[in-house]
């Protein structure tokens, strides 16, 4: 298996699965078959006394040491060759940076475009540079047999290629706390021409810049826009809402206003909304970003979710 001939990661890995599973199945059937046959044939009702007192056989021991050794060495070799294909990124791959935080994904492209879903051109290899901002996460694409941890302070990467356009699951595979299982999104493989259009379309600036910032910083991993329950309180109708918060152990009720929202983003541990876990990390945003986001909430908040709506919600 020459890694250079491998066109996709799934084509590199699947034959290794078939080989190992096939060999294991043969072994398992052999062992179990022999065991069942012996138990029936030499059951005490048929064999009241043992008919052998053999304590071993050197040749048998040699055979069943050498044969498994050769077999596992073959497994090791194929496994390694397949793994190399996962590491050798084909030339000309599109580079995307994946940023993982508790508990959301963000993908940024060379031209500065960013998205909570991983849009890629079908038929073109994509190299994903993996960045973690807080704890360990795992970049896992089951359809492409690709997985790599995102480690704070370490440069990791993975590559894959979608041969056909379509939507593929993207999971966080390394446990990262309360929202771990909600940290899922999709790879959206588009026909190359359509992808180019998407990549170069500037989201009409000013339309919903607040929402873009919420996506960029991964806020929507824990806070929904449509009122559905997530790990944190929903953003729907947040402006002016009255909330019960726990401040330094004491409960109090207040209205959502500018000072409260700034505090909730800059020092989230100061007031914890009752009924939610105290787990939000602080986001040191710039003043103008805070103003944009708060402006978005003030304006009545989210417009109905469009094509960037959360997949998990759609499926439910």
């Amino acid at each position, binding site marked *: 298996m020459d890694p250079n001939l491998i066109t996709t990661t799934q084509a590199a*890995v699947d034959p*290794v699965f078939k080989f*190992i*599973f096939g060999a*294991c199945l043969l072994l*398992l059937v052999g*062992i*179990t078959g*022999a*065991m069942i046959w*012996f*138990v029936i044939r*030499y*059951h005490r009702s048929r*064999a009241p006394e*043992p*008919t*052998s*007192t*053999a*304590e*071993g*056989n050197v040749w*048998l*021991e040699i055979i*069943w040491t050498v044969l*498994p050794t050769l077999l*596992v060495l073959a497994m090791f070799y194929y*496994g*390694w060759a*397949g*793994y190399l*294909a996962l590491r050798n990124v084909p030339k000309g791959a599109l580079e995307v940076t994946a940023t993982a935080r508790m508990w959301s994904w963000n993908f940024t492209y060379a031209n500065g475009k960013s998205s909570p879903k991983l849009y890629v051109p079908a038929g073109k290899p994509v190299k994903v540079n993996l960045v973690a901002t*807080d*704890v*360990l996460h*795992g970049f*896992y694409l*089951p*359809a492409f047999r690709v997985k*790599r941890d995102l*480690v704070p*302070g370490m440069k*990791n990467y993975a590559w894959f290629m979608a041969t056909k356009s379509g939507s593929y*699951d993207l*999971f*966080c*595979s*390394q*446990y*990262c*706390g*309360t*929202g*771990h*299982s*909600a940290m899922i999104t999709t790879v959206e493989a588009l026909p190359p021409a359509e992808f180019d259009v998407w990549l170069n379309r500037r989201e009409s600036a000013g339309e919903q810049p607040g929402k873009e910032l919420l996506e960029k910083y991964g806020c929507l991993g824990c806070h929904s826009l449509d009122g559905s329950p997530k*790990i944190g309180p929903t953003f729907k109708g947040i402006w002016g809402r009255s909330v019960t918060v726990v401040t330094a152990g004491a409960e109090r009720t207040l209205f959502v206003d500018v000072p409260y929202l700034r505090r909730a983003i800059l020092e989230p541990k100061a007031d914890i909304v009752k009924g939610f*876990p105290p*787990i939000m990390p602080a986001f040191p945003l710039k003043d103008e970003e805070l103003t944009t986001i708060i402006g978005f909430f003030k304006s009545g908040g989210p417009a109905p979710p469009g094509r960037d709506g959360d997949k998990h919600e759609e499926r439910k």
Partner: protein
Amino acid sequence: MNPSDHPPAVFTSFWNDTGKTGITSWIFSTDHKRIGLLYFWSVLGFFLTAVLLGLLLRIELMAPGRTIMGPETYNALFTVHGAIMVFLFIIPGFPGAFGNLVMPIQIGARDVSFPRLNLFSWWLYMMGAAVIIISLFTGGGPPDTGWTFYVPFSARTGTNVSLAVFGVFIVGFSSIVTGVNFVTTIHRLRAPGMSWDRLPLFVWSLYATAWVQILATPILGITLVLIIAERVLGVGLFDPMKGGDPVMYQHLFWIYSHPAVYIMILPAMGVISEIIPVFSRKPVFGYKMIAFSSIAIAAAGSLVWGHHMFTSGMSDRAILVFSFLTFVVAIPSAIKVFNWVSTLYRGSISLEAPMLYALSFILLFSIGGLTGLILGAAATDIHVHDTHFVVGHFHYVIFGGSGFALFGAMHYWLPKFYGRRYAEKPALIAWGLMFVGFNITYFSMMVLGMKGMPRRYYDYLPEFAPLNLVSTVGSWILAVGLVLMLVNLIRGLRKGEPVGNNPWGGATLEWTIPSPPPTENFPEEPVVTHGPYDFSKAGTP
């Protein structure tokens, strides 16, 4: 545990030796049999607690979305389930309970080398367990890190991680102390004639295990102290912002925790090597290879920890080496399986409960071991790492392997120490239920993992729903079997048919003395004249 229930014996049994009664005759006893039973019942209590948590986890996963608990509760439950099962059940389970009960008798000794250290080991275990339990209900609540305590999450979470890992730290010392005691005992206290090549294979497996306990556990202790230092002092050993490295933590953790898998499975293999020849009435096939492979597994198994880290960002060269060594360690396990199956050939096989557990061990452990080859090969590991495939795989090895071997050992050896036995028919039904339930529960998980469902997922996409439901139903069948097994076993030990010295026709030394054994085991020091599987001389030293 009422000693007066037992029929009068020619020798005073260890149940009514000192004249002292009550709890202090147990918790301050230095008799290896009493300490073994203390360990056994404590370990069983923790096992049942963790089983209950496991069943709750399966109910939560029965359907997507919230079923009975929120994500914080779920994360705490799988952490506590794993930590109890690993640190309080299966690691101390074999050496602490059956090692203590059986090993000194099997080598013809009156007790272990350091009886008071042995008692101290149980006390350390209970103190560590108490600290772990306190950690669940104090501070920020039960840890939610997973039993692996990976940084940086474990350094950041507000839950009570420091106290919990301190409890595990104490439990680690109890394991080291038992290891030291067993190595010394096996070297120094063998009866005359008990040469190394007459050592029962269970003793060989405990010997290999004891070295792992001594050599690997200190590294866990250090690693756990470093987590506390990270949390309390902010030293930053694992924090990249302070020049540390999160991947280094994973190395330290698995340098212990992979060999720990062999602490769990090696003595189980030893139990199987005892039961199969006895119920086939035939010498074990390849005694030397089985004994040698225990040592080989303990040695090679200490060098394969990196296979838990193929996706971690560790270098490709390290992956090459660890993948290779992982395949090497598969070979001695295969040798054992072939020798067990060959022992059956031309024997006279009786399918009583201990034998059914032993035979199902071979099948379940083989499935666990063979799926381990998928995880050892670098290419395939990447897809299934951190998925339910791994969860299924290690439950096949540790529950289907070690767990079923422990159940086999309970049926095989507990009658020796209680003088009474379980009823056979309910034992067979319980075994059947557990075997079926087990496979439904964990085979479904492996398929889910192949389809891409990550582990430690509170919620999942609808495509994973049908198999999760199947797995949960399987867990109920498994639980019914488990309850039936325990009820039948405990009832049998209290009120069952009395057994003589040698109910199974075994040829090792424990079957030459009364059931229950006298306090100092042997009326006079035995002189061993034959090997452990020479059934023509069964019942004599």
